[in-house]
């Protein structure tokens, strides 16, 4: 690993007490960043799933009316929907099935069967169908009094808004983590510059360019960052696996598991490299700026 980043042969930065705990801080920062990334990508996937599932699935509700023939209304509605271009499948949900859906909320009781329960029809529309749901709803209401098309849109909109808000918060955490990391690195480098000012002066006076000195700083701090980032990422991945296991065992279908997809996984794998690059260029900038103030 030392060969990968080079050694600070003249400055002996490896012996600095001031930067000894930097890997621990970087580890914590990478841990938080990894969780933020997984949150962002998982929510993105979850929102797309909700959106695509609920956009394809519609429900037609026919209000309970003791004076009307509900079975006939269901048949009429199914015929109308099946004849509508863009609708791929129509299925009338039997009363028994509807009652079963209510069991988790109302319990098993024969009284439920006497409740004024609406009749439901499940409608599946074709992918990328340009169907006008508003027009279909009006047509359905006119043909079958009491029928209403439920697109789940208000619920989906609220869930999407919640998801996007959490994604924004996660992105905010990422920015915060990046900023804090940069600030910590700046302070550590400035301390190093002060501690090694005498050697730096000697190196300058025997002809060292600023870049030669900056390289020793950036190699050392990049190495510390990379070594700190790896355990931080490993712990974050372990936490994600535990979270997924708990989500799976709860069978909470609405709670998204941390499924990152290939984009999320790539971002996670690249995280230590990106943090190392961020450190490298921060260190280089700070060192060169400070050295430029010397003769």
């Amino acid at each position, binding site marked *: 690993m030392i060969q990968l980043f080079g050694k600070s*042969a*003249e400055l*002996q930065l490896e012996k600095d007490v001031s930067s000894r705990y930097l890997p621990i801080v970087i580890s914590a920062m990478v841990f938080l960043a990894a969780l933020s990334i997984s949150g962002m990508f998982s929510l993105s996937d979850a929102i797309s799933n909700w959106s695509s599932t609920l956009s394809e699935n519609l429900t037609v509700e026919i209000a309970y009316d003791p004076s009307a023939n509900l079975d006939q209304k269901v048949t009429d509605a199914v015929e109308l929907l099946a004849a509508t271009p863009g609708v791929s499948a129509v299925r009338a949900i039997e009363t028994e099935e509807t009652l079963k859906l209510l069991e988790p909320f109302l319990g098993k009781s024969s009284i439920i069967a006497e409740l004024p329960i609406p009749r439901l029809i499940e409608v599946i529309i074709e992918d990328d169908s340009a169907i006008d749901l508003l027009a279909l709803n009006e047509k359905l209401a006119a043909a079958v009094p009491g029928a209403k098309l439920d697109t789940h849109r208000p619920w989906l909109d609220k869930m999407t808004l919640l998801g996007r808000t959490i994604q924004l918060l996660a992105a905010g955490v990422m920015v915060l983590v990046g900023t804090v990391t940069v600030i910590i690195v700046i302070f550590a480098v400035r301390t190093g510059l002060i501690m090694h000012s*005498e*050697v730096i*002066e*000697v*190196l*300058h*006076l*025997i*002809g*060292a*360019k*600023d870049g*030669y000195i900056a390289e020793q700083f950036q190699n050392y701090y990049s190495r510390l960052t990379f070594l700190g980032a790896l355990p931080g990422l490993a712990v974050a991945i372990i936490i994600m696996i535990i979270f997924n296991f708990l989500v799976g065992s709860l069978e909470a279908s609405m709670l998204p598991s941390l499924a990152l997809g290939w984009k999320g996984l790539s971002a996670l794998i690249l995280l230590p490299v990106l943090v190392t690059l961020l450190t490298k260029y921060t260190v280089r900038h700070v060192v060169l700026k400070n050295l*430029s103030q010397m*003769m």
Partner: protein
Amino acid sequence: MVRFENVGMRYGMGPEVLRDISFHLRPGSFHFLTGPTGAGKSSLLKLLALSHRPSRGLVTLFKREVSSLERDDLPGFRRKIGVVYQDFRLLDHLSALDNVALPLKIAGAKNEQIYQHVAELLEWVGLGNQVDAKPPTLSGGEKQRVAIARAIINRPQLLIADEPTGSMDAEMGLRLMHLFLELNKIGTTVVVATHDLDMIERFGNPVMYLKDGLLSSKAPNTSTETSDETDA
């Protein structure tokens, strides 16, 4: 080679430590710089070593006026100057070999060339058996020789030495001065700052005498005057 014209120098907002310094050093000349403690010798050497800039006046080194140098020009100019510091300024964690090799390494020379030259030079200054020793294990005289070897490894055009014989006995001091003379014979311009008036007398080279920040051409208690090479 080196030209100072009405040069003044101060540290921060403090008083001037050098005032109206004017002189010209020709290439291949050898000069002593002397004066009482606090006269400004080290400050003058700092200007020569491009460690500091003058507060006023013109300093010309290698035909370039120092204030016109860009930051990127400085390393190239400093590589033409070898400096032997009074306190050696060696890197304690590096061996004598690595300390001496440092200017070549910084200049980007290849490793094979570096270590062949360095080993030969250390042999020449009498430290052939101490190449792996680190400065804390060396005596004052040995450190001084490592510092001198580091200063001359790049074949500098200008060699500056601040009290180079201050930390060694008279015999070793004399040997080092002969080393400087050898370097001077092969064309290096040498400036040696010293309090040792006997040594100045013995070698008879031109003297720059500093007192209260002002330069004069003759040191008290010596018969040596500034030659026409030094237009003090």
